[in-house]
């Protein structure tokens, strides 16, 4: 007998309000694109409804309005998902403007939790622990469970939730019978199609089910479109395409929690010298390397946490431009970092955390048949890290092209880890350009004998006019190549607005 899926939907009708800190006591609405998407209890009592204009809500008496904080809501949903991961790994997020939530597939976990009632009670307890107000629905498909959750009321205790939800036998037929009386107006995202269905005499899902049982889904598909038909197939659990659906079932989405590495070592006695930390650093980095290899991950940053016996702590971040799975480079970079960082206190505990990881990207390498020396890209990272430790992060960089006509804006300084843009526009490929550019052009004196900058200048080529940024701060310059009295060639220009001459580059 094939397993019947069991989906549990969790709708969070007050998520927008609950992520607000502190909670609003006055009648308040949350808006998106000038429409009310959520109103707290006080505002609802005044007659404010979803979908109303902000002005209408204010006229009805809403005292405050806030923009929806979708980032905070996504973060809250993420936290809730991580809590519920202990119950089932098959969790998918349901994005919804008014009531976002989660959908959990439970049929694969029933044995572990000794039945549906225990499992649902566990889920409800975990949700209650987070403090989020939630409504639940259970069905054989995710869409049906989501719809049934909308019609349910908020229970008080996890046991009440579980008891209600398991009253229905665990079968598709039983769940479909629950949908019979659900009005079609509860469908989200198909307003025109629902209006058309109403006009055609379909008002509940029971009407739809009768039609589907009589004529199949194709009649509805022909009349109301494929999108609605697919939704109804998902809702009812109809597989309209294959004779052997069990072979081609779509796998339930599995939630992958963010994993991070966090280990620490305690010394036998507090250490005062940096050298005494190195063996412990090696050990922790070996554990990190094992963790990264086992999870097929790599990282750019690690954080060392030093703590003393009074729990005073300090974090030191080590960054690598290239993502690392091996730990040799991270060890070298850590040593460089610590060489220039004296210990502020006696260190009793050394911790290593790696919070941000990414999937390990296997880099293909060319086979070396020529025997030529191949440079190790890691070696420049070590050298650069040593230089940055002495001179600062901004002291080591590369130059890159930028698409701009103004010379000083056409070159940009980038970190070593970025790739430089080297594509010259066709029009610029044959222009005469100096190898050195002064970031700030140097003013030239206009003397009686002519232009003077550390020597008299003679213009020998030009002008090349650069005129741009008329929409902002207009720039108009005539560029020339000038020969100084000692035969040095300079790139000079006359600012046509300020009528001033400048040196901008040297042809070295």
């Amino acid at each position, binding site marked *: 007998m094939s397993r019947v899926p069991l989906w549990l939907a969790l709708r969070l009708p007050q998520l927008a309000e609950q992520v607000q800190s502190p909670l609003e006591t006055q009648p308040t609405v949350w808006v998106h694109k000038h429409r009310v998407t959520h109103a707290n209890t006080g505002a609802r009592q005044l007659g404010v409804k979803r979908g109303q204009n902000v002005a209408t809500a204010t006229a009805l008496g809403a005292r405050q309005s806030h923009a929806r904080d979708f980032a905070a809501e996504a973060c809250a949903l993420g936290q809730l998902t991580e809590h519920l991961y202990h119950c089932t790994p098959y969790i998918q997020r349901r994005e919804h403007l008014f009531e976002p939530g989660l959908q959990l597939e439970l049929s694969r976990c029933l044995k572990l939790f000794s039945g549906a009632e225990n499992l649902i009670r566990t889920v409800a307890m975990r949700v209650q622990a987070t403090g989020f107000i939630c409504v639940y629905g259970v069905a054989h498909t995710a869409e049906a469970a989501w719809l049934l959750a909308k019609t349910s009321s908020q229970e008080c205790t996890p046991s009440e939730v579980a008891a209600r939800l398991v009253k229905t036998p665990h079968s598709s037929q039983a769940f479909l019978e629950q949908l019979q009386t659900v009005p079609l107006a509860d469908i989200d995202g198909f307003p025109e199609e629902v209006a058309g269905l109403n006009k055609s005499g379909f008002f509940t899902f029971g009407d739809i089910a009768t039609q589907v049982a009589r004529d199949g889904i194709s009649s509805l598909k022909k009349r109301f479109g494929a999108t609605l038909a697919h939704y109804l197939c998902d809702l009812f659990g109809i597989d309209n395409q294959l004779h052997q659906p069990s072979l081609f079932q779509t796998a339930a989405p599995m939630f992958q929690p963010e994993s991070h590495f966090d280990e620490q070592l305690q010394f036998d006695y507090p250490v005062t010298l940096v050298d005494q930390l190195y063996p412990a650093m090696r050990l922790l980095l070996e554990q990190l390397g094992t963790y990264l290899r086992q999870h097929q991950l790599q990282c750019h940053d690690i954080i060392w946490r030093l703590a003393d016996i009074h729990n005073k702590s300090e974090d030191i971040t080590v960054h690598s431009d290239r993502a690392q799975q091996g730990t040799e480079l991270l060890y070298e970079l850590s040593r460089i970092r610590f060489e220039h960082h004296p210990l502020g206190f006696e260190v009793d505990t050394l911790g290593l955390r790696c919070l941000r990881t990414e999937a390990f990207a296997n880099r293909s390498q060319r086979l070396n048949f020529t025997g030529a020396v191949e440079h190790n890209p890691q070696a420049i990272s070590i050298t650069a890290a040593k230089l940055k430790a002495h001179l600062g992060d901004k002291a080591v960089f590369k130059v890159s092209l930028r698409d701009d006509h103004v010379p000083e804006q056409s*070159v940009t300084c980038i970190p070593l880890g970025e790739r430089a843009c080297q594509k010259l526009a066709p029009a610029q490929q044959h222009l005469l350009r100096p190898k050195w550019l002064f970031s700030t052009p140097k003013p030239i004196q206009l003397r009686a004998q002519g232009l003077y900058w550390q020597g008299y200048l003679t213009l020998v080529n030009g002008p090349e006019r650069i005129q741009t940024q008329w929409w902002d701060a207009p720039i108009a310059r005539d560029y020339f190549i000038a020969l100084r009295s*000692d035969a040095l060639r300079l790139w000079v220009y006359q600012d046509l607005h300020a009528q001033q001459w400048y040196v901008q580059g040297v042809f070295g």
Partner: protein
Amino acid sequence: MNKQPPPLLETVLRRQDVWRGFVPSFAAEDGVETGYPLLNAALVHSGWPPGALVEVCQDAGAASAEWQLLLPALRQARGFVVLLNPPALPFASALVQAGLDLDRVLVVQTDDKPGFLKSYVELARTSVCDVVLAWQPAQTLSYTDLRKCALAGNDHSLCVLFRPFNALRQSSPAALRLACFWRRTQLEVRIYKQKGALVKERERVLLPVAGLPAELWRPDDFAETSIQPAATAQVVSLFDKT
């Protein structure tokens, strides 16, 4: 007992660092190609000496002849080219036009002499940097500082230190000391010191100027060919209401 040849003397004579008067016959021709046949012919290694300090003196206070002199060698480099304490920002457009890979050109800015020396030693030692071009910081480098720089080089990198003209008066442990002067159509390179060869007079090599159209350079007086910009160049402003 078999009579053995005097191996110690032969071995000593084959060493490259043994001065043999006027005979540079044991100098290995393993120099980095300069790109100029005349300059190759004037140098003991038939190119820039690998792993040794090359000192180039030029006009103080301004970037001058670096690219003209070294661009052919930079194009050959497969590793990184590092500009240490450069006098200005390298212009990316010009470097791309010259055929250099911007991903392999690094710039390191230093504020003072200790930072400069640490950085130079670090860069000269590493095997990933094929070329290190360094400009002396504001504080003059002493003989001891130069000795540190000279000893830091590895076997295959080209390390060039640019200093002002007045440094020629100072002793230096550099294996090769040059001075560069711009001429109207050429770059004059004078060799002041070269390890493995006697320099009786200041050997002069004239290198052709590359990278600019030849018609710009005429041997006659430039005053007649100089361009005079218009007194007021017309600029049309889009926001001019008149």
